[in-house]
C-alpha cells in the first residue's frame, strides 16, 4: 500500500468519492444481488446482468462524483429543455409498450425520457431557485411549480404514475427546502383534498382500480388485488427471522409477481423476516442520514437544494416501494432503489449519489 503509484491511483479514484456513502450503497447493492439470486431461482443470467448493471452504475457514480457542481449548474437548464423536448416527442411519436407510451425510438436506441427527468427536474429547480436566491417571491415558487408540473403531467399521461409521483416528490422537496411558506403548503394540501374528486375522474381505470384495491384487496383477489394480497402474505409469513435464504415458498412457487423488480422486497421480507426488514430499513436510513448531512453542509443554494432533493427522492423511492409491497400504498411501478433488478433505475439513482458525493467533495475546493 506504500507503493506510490497505487497510492496515487487510489487518490484519484477516491478523491471525490464519499467512503461512508459508497459503503452503504454497496451494502444495499449486495443485498439486492443476494435476494436476486433467490428471486430468480439462482438464474445465472439474471444475476450476471444485474452485476453488470451494478458495475455500470458505479462507473456512472464515479464519473458524476468527479463533475464539479458548477458544471452541473450550467448543465441544469439545457438538460431540462432537452428532457421536455423528448417528453413531447414521446407524447407524439412514442412507442406503446404494455399499454403505456413511455419509450422513444431514436433509431439507434430506445430511451425512456421520464428517467432523465428524475434528475433533470430537481437540477433545473435547484438552478432556478439558486438564480433567484436573493429575491425569492411567491411568484418564483409559482414558476417553480409550473416547471415541475408540466413534465409531471406529460409523464402521468403516458401513463406512468410511479415516475410522476417520484418527480412530484423531488420537485416538492426543492420547493419545500427553498422555503415555500407553510401557509401555501397547507393551502395546497387543502386545495388538493378538495380537488381529489376531480383528480379521481382524471385517473385511468387501472389507476383507480389500484387505489380501490389498496382499500380492500380482497374485492378482487385474482385481479388487481392479487399483487397486494400475495406480497403481504409473503411479508407476513416471514415472521421474526424469515424462512431462510432461498426458502421462501411464496417466492419459489411463483406467487409473488414481479419478484425481481418492484416486489423484490416481498422476497426479502419472506426469507429474512422482521429482523432482515429492520436491518434493511436501517441501511436506507443511514444512506438518507448521510445524504442529509451532506445536504446540511452544502455550500450553495443550488447544491443544498439539489442534494436535499436527491436524498429525499431516494427516501420517497424506498418508502413508496416498501409501502406498496406491504400493502399500505397503492401499487405504482416504483422499484426498491439499489435492490430491484433494472439498469436504468440503478443508473439514475447512482447519478444522484455521484452528485451528492461531488457536492460533498468539491465543497472544500470551492471554498479554497
Amino acid at each position, binding site marked *: 500500500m506504500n507503493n506510490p503509484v497505487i497510492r496515487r491511483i487510489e487518490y484519484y479514484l477516491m478523491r471525490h468519492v464519499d467512503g461512508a456513502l459508497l459503503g452503504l450503497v454497496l451494502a444495499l447493492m449486495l443485498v439486492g444481488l443476494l435476494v436476486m439470486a433467490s428471486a430468480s431461482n439462482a438464474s445465472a443470467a439474471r444475476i450476471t446482468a444485474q452485476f453488470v448493471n451494478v458495475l455500470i452504475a458505479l462507473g456512472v457514480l464515479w464519473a458524476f462524483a468527479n463533475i464539479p457542481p458548477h458544471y452541473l449548474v450550467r448543465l441544469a437548464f439545457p438538460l431540462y429543455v432537452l428532457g421536455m423536448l423528448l417528453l413531447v416527442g414521446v407524447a407524439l411519436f412514442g412507442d406503446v409498450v404494455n399499454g403505456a407510451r413511455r419509450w422513444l425510438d431514436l433509431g439507434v436506441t430506445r430511451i425512456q425520457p421520464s428517467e432523465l427527468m428524475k434528475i433533470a427536474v430537481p437540477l433545473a429547480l435547484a438552478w432556478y431557485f439558486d438564480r433567484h436566491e*436573493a429575491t425569492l417571491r411567491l411568484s418564483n415558487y409559482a414558476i417553480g411549480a409550473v416547471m415541475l408540473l408540466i413534465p409531471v403531467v406529460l409523464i402521468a399521461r403516458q401513463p406512468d404514475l410511479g415516475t410522476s409521483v417520484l418527480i412530484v416528490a423531488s420537485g416538492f422537496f426543492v420547493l419545500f427546502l427553498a422555503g415555500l411558506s407553510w401557509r401555501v403548503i397547507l393551502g395546497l394540501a387543502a386545495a388538493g383534498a378538495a380537488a381529489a374528486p376531480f383528480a379521481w375522474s382524471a385517473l385511468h381505470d387501472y389507476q383507480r382500480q389500484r387505489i380501490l384495491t389498496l382499500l380492500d384487496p380482497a374485492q378482487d383477489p385474482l385481479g388487481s388485488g392479487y399483487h397486494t394480497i400475495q406480497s403481504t402474505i409473503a411479508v407476513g409469513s*416471514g415472521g421474526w427471522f424469515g424462512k431462510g435464504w432461498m426458502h421462501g*415458498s411464496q417466492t419459489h412457487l411463483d406467487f409473488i409477481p414481479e419478484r425481481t423488480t418492484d416486489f423484490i422486497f416481498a422476497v426479502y*421480507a419472506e426469507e429474512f423476516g422482521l429482523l432482515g426488514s429492520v436491518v434493511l430499513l436501517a441501511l436506507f436510513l443511514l444512506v438518507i*442520514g448521510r445524504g*442529509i448531512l451532506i445536504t446540511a453542509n452544502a455550500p450553495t443554494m443550488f447544491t443544498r437544494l439539489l442534494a436535499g432533493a436527491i436524498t429525499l427522492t431516494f427516501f420517497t423511492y424506498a418508502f413508496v416501494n*416498501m409501502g406498496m409491497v406491504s*400493502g*399500505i400504498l397503492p401499487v405504482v411501478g416504483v422499484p426498491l432503489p439499489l435492490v430491484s433488478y433494472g439498469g436504468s433505475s440503478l443508473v439514475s439513482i447512482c447519478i444522484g449519489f455521484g452528485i451528492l458525493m461531488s457536492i460533498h467533495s468539491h465543497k472544500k475546493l470551492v471554498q479554497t
Partner: protein
Amino acid sequence: MSFDLSINPGVELRNAQLELQQFRRRLAIAAGFVLIMFLLLACRFFYLQVVKHGELYTLAEANRISIVPVLPNRGIIVDRNGVALAHNYSAYTLEIQPAKIDNLESLIDELATVVEIAPRDRRRFRRLLEESKSIGSLPIRTRLSDEEIARFAANRYRFPGVEINARLFRQYPQGELFSHVVGHIGRINQREVEQLEADGIFANYRGTDYIGKTGLEHNYERYLHGTTGVEEVEVDSGGRPVRTLSRSSPVSGNNLVLNLDARLQEVAYQAFGERRGALVAIDPATGGVLAFVSKPGFDPNHFVDGIDPQNWDELNSSPDLPMVNRALAGTYPPGSTFKPFMALAALTYGRRTPQQAISDPGHFNFGGHVFRDDKAGGHGMVDMYKSIVVSCDTYYYVLANDLGIDAIARFMGTLGFGSRSGIDIAGESAGILPSQEWKLKRFKQKWFAGETISVGIGQGYNAYTPLQLAQAIATIANDGVTYRPHIVNYIEDIRTRDRAMVEPRPPRTLDLKPEHLAVIQQALVGVNKEGTGARAFAGAEYVSAGKTGTAQVIGIKQGEKYLESRVQERHRDHALFIAYAPADAPKIALAVVVENSGFGARHAAPVARKVLDYYLLGKLPVPQKLGKDDDE
C-alpha cells in the same frame, strides 16, 4: 422576504446566514418526516410479520399446498360364480370447467371441430350443467380415442378451461339383464350432496363425481365407494404440481358377491320372450335371491355419464314401463296362487280339515251376487287337495266367507303379504293386504262381506309384489321357516379377502303345524303332476310343487264371459305361477308374473319350468323354443 441586495452587503451576509438557518430547519423537518415514515413502515412490518404472522403463514401454506383427493376404485359386483355384473374401466374424458368459460355454446362448437361431439353429448352436457351448478368440471365427451386425444392436445392452447382426464368408468357388462337389481351409479346431485353432508361423510366424497342411484349400487354405496385418499401436493401459482409432500392411499371399495346366478337370470329373462313380467327365485333354505327379473329392463350404462334427455324421455314414456321394477314395486292380484295360502289359513284356524269336501255347482251365491267358478258346471265334490290341484274357485268363495276378511288378513300378514320383505334394494312396495281396518283407512268406508269372497281367490283388493309371492312360497317350501330375502351373499374386502356375510335376519319360524304344511305341499306337487301345472311340467326329471294363477286386469261384468281374444292386449289377464323344487328338499322357490298373457298355466308355468330345469339340471332351454312359448 424581498431584500435589495445592492444597497447593503452586510444585510446580504446576515440574510444568507438566516437563510441557511431556515434551510437547516426545513431539512430537520424533512429528516423528522423521514424518520416518522420509516417508523410507520417498521410498525407495518411488525404488524404483518409478528401480529398477523400466524394467519399469513397459514395462507402461504395454503397457497403452497393443494390437497388433492385420490379416488378409490369402486368395488365390483359379481354373481355367485364370479361373473362380473358391474366393474370399472379406465378411459379418457374431455371435460369443461363451466366457471372458467364465458360462452359455452361457441366453445363447444369450436371443440366440435377438433373432437367429435354428437348432439347426444350436447344434450347430456346441458342436463349435467343444470343439475350440478358450480361443481368442478363436467364431461362433454367420454371414451376419447387416441387420435382424438392427440388432436385435442395439439389444439389445447385454444381451449383454456377444457382438459382431458383419465377416469375410471363404471360399466355394466350384462346390460339390461340386471338393470333392476344391480342398479346403476350416476353423477352426484345437490340433494345427495346435502345428504352426504348431513351424514357427515361428505369429506370422503371429495373428488368423487358418482354415487349409487338405484339397486345394489345405491343400497351398498358405503361398502362399494371405498375411502378417498389424500395427496398433499406443493403447487405453484399456476396450480401446477411441483412435488408430492405426502400421500395417504385410497382404500378401494369392497366387492359384492351376490346370491344371484347370472346364467339363471339370463335363462329366466329369455324365458319371457317378448312378454313383460317379473320373476323372483329364492333359495328357501337361506333367503338368498337366485334370480330377480323385471322385464323389460333398460341399459344402465346410459345412466353412468348422465343420460341424455332424449333417451330419458323414451324410457319414461314407453308404455312398457321399463323403468318400473316389477319384481320389487309392481303389485299384482295373486289370483289362484293365493289359494294354497288360503287353504293353509283354513287348516291353521281350524275352519277346514283336509278331507272336508264341498259340492261345487260352478258358482257361489252371496247376497244376491253370483260368483262364478272358472269351470262351468263346477268340479263336483271338492276336498282341499282337489281344490288346489284343479284350482276350484267355489271352494275358496265359501272358505273366504267362513274365515272372514280379518282372519285372512291376519294369517296372510304372517306370510309376509302386505309388508315389505326387507330385501337389500330400495324401492320395495308393500302391496295391499285388504282388511276392514285397511279399507276404513284407505277409502273411509266399511268393509262389505261380499268383498271378502273375491279376496278368497286372490282377486279384489289383493295386490302383492312378485317378491312377496316368492317369499311366501319359499316359506311353505321351507316348512314355515322364513328368511329375509337378500341379493348380496357377502361383502368382500378386496385387500384382506375378508368376507362379511350379509346375514339374513335370524329366521322366523311361523306358527304352522307340520301336518298342515304337508297337506298343502302334497297338493302343490299334485298341481304339477295331475293339475293345472301338469302340462308345463310333463316329463320333468324332478318332483316339483307349483300353483297357477290368473289375475284379472279389468273387471268383468256379471254374466259376461271373459274371452281372451276379444280383449285388448293390455287388458288381458296376467299369468302367474309359483313353484318350488325338488319337492322333498327344495333348493329353489319362485314366483312368476307374465303380464297380459292370459291363463297362468299356459304362459307363466313354462317360464318357471325353464328356470327350474336350468337350476336343478343345468339344462338350457332349446334355443329355437325361446320366445315361442307365447304362441303355444
